[in-house]
């Protein structure tokens, strides 16, 4: 520190004491647990991409002192939870990131493209700016029953990405085929299936997310929904962890767990041998966030002829595909995409197929593989693999 230098306007930060209080409240005290050890920054995947890595520690420190960091780095975070997994004090870093993002909404300093995302949920009931009247188009010629609590065991919750994204629609169709094969009595809310609001939560607009939760909770209650099977781990995560557990009457389960149960209950069996060498990508919101590591693997291993080889970075250390934390709606520069590294790690296993259980992972990983010339590795969601063996 050069004491003889007269500070210029740029060096002067306005400290906002109330910022600290707000953060304390928003994170329910977590932010004060951080003692600035820096392990979070060390394990953050952004460190892999050289340049300006996301310094989680610095973000938190600025906030602790009361300086609102207007840094665009705040929006780089994919909320993969790698930091949470290693934090010695058990700080929920994703919660702090969301809180900081909420403060950015209040200050009108959010990343471009995000207000449009929220408006899209508001006007179109999905974050993809797709027409709400076309939410059922993924069904094509299939028959998908409308949910009736008196006749259906579960509600199948498709989610916005699998409803509208052409690649992800195939996951939904595969799952429907599995349910038909297993004679599962399931129903779907159709065109009126509400957006779960995960993207609003990810980008930190907590009040809007709260409103979505209230509306959806009422809708589910009115429709008599209890057991919900989701396609996306993101929808699963919000239903499980961010929707009020009112008498625990909504029981969300990810489809891989449900399919595992179908197999163990003898309702689903395989008649075809699939001679594939596969590796598996743990989606962050299934694995690290909700500890569902085994169910997808059990399903994969139940398929005759499959050889499952794990990547070196696996389980708690699995690399994020880069899609979480709202980043599916933000541009990530070429050369900085997590999925590019992840597919390299997958290729190292010499597997011919990369299996995952999340629409974001499927889309990001497939995109990355496409840019590798003459690469034969395929990406399949667990449901798509299962359908091949029926």
């Amino acid at each position, binding site marked *: 520190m050069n004491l003889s230098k007269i500070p210029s306007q740029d060096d002067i930060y306005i400290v906002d004491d109330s910022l600290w209080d707000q953060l304390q409240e928003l994170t329910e005290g977590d932010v004060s647990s951080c003692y600035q050890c820096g392990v979070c920054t060390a394990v953050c995947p952004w460190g892999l991409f050289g340049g300006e890595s996301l310094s989680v520690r610095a973000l938190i420190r600025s906030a602790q002192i009361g300086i609102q960091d207007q840094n665009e780095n705040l929006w780089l975070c994919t909320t993969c939870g790698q930091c949470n997994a290693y934090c010695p004090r058990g700080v929920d870093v994703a919660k702090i990131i969301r809180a900081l993002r909420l403060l950015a909404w209040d200050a*009108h300093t959010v990343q471009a493209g995000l*207000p449009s995302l929220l408006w899209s949920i*508001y006007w179109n009931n999905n974050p993809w700016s797709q027409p*709400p009247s076309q939410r059922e188009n993924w069904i094509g010629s299939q028959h998908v029953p409308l949910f009736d609590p008196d006749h259906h065991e579960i509600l199948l919750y498709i989610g916005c990405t699998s409803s509208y994204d052409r690649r992800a629609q195939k996951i939904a169709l595969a799952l429907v085929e599995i349910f038909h094969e297993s004679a599962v009595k399931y129903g779907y809310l159709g065109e009126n299936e509400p957006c779960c609001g995960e993207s609003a939560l990810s980008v930190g607009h907590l009040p809007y997310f709260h409103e979505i939760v209230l509306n959806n909770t009422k809708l589910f209650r009115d429709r008599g929904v209890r057991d919900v099977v989701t396609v996306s781990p993101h929808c699963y995560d919000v239903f499980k962890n961010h929707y009020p557990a009112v008498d625990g009457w909504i029981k969300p389960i990810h489809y891989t767990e449900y399919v595992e149960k179908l197999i163990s209950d003898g309702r689903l069996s395989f008649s075809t041998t699939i001679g594939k060498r596969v590796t598996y990508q743990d989606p962050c919101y299934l694995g690290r966030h909700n500890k569902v590591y085994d169910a997808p693997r059990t399903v994969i291993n139940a398929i005759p002829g499959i050889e499952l080889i794990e990547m070196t970075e696996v389980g708690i250390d699995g690399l994020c595909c880069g899609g979480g934390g709202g980043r599916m709606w933000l541009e990530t520069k070429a050369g900085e995409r997590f999925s590019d590294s992840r597919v390299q790690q997958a290729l190292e296993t010499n597997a011919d197929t990369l299996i995952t259980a999340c629409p974001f992972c499927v889309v990001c990983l497939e995109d990355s593989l496409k840019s590798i010339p003459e690469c034969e590795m395929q990406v399949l969601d667990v449901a798509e693999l299962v359908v091949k063996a029926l």
Partner: protein
Amino acid sequence: MGELHIVVCVKIVPKPEEIRVDPETRLLNREGVRSEINPPDMNALEMALKLKDEFGARLDILSMGPPSFEPHLRAALAMGCDHIYLLSDHAFAGADTLATTYTLAKGIEKISGVDIVFLGEESSDGATGQVPPGLAEWLNISQLTLITDVNVDLNQWVVQGRREIKGGYEILEVPIPCAISVKTAANEPRFMDFSRKDWAFDKGSITIWNASDLCVEKEYIGLPGSPTIVSDLAEASVRERKNIFIKGDADEIARQLANIIQSVI
């Protein structure tokens, strides 16, 4: 001089992809069709709100339509506006742009003291783009259209706007009062301010005026005020394409494409 008084004209439109034409009656079928704020009007709202941020202003919304428009207009209120004026009367229905601009002009006159009127470039349903210049003409005020950026000079009492035209742009200046149409997608509309939202949807102020409140001349509103009539209506047919896939290696594909191209041009 006091505070700047800005009004944004907002239209609530049906979602275009949901509109159908009844093949027998040849009328638009609006049943069950979802509505939204005309997307270009969202850009107009954002531009007006930016001026409010910068200069402080009273910012009202003016709309014309049935009471069912209310919840959507309240969303605009929650973005940061102060008041809604809704012109609602069966007599206004069936209006083409001449009658619409007349009615809106009467609304602006009744609000009174309006310095700047913002509008979206066009609406997603009719897409005529005629309302901004038409409204300016009725009010006998200047206009700036297709504006992507705007500045107010409070001393000179003028508005400067950047207007996008083919091959470039112009910077124009007009005196206040004036009407400004905002180019579609000129900015990213801010999301609702949730600290304002409860007020906007609950107690948020709205005034509803009918034809007699506005002192309009009956021949100038609704159907009587509309020179144009729709003589036929149909759903546009999507052109059928051949969808022929060309296979082969790059050279083979190139040869086939060249043949196709040479037969076309």
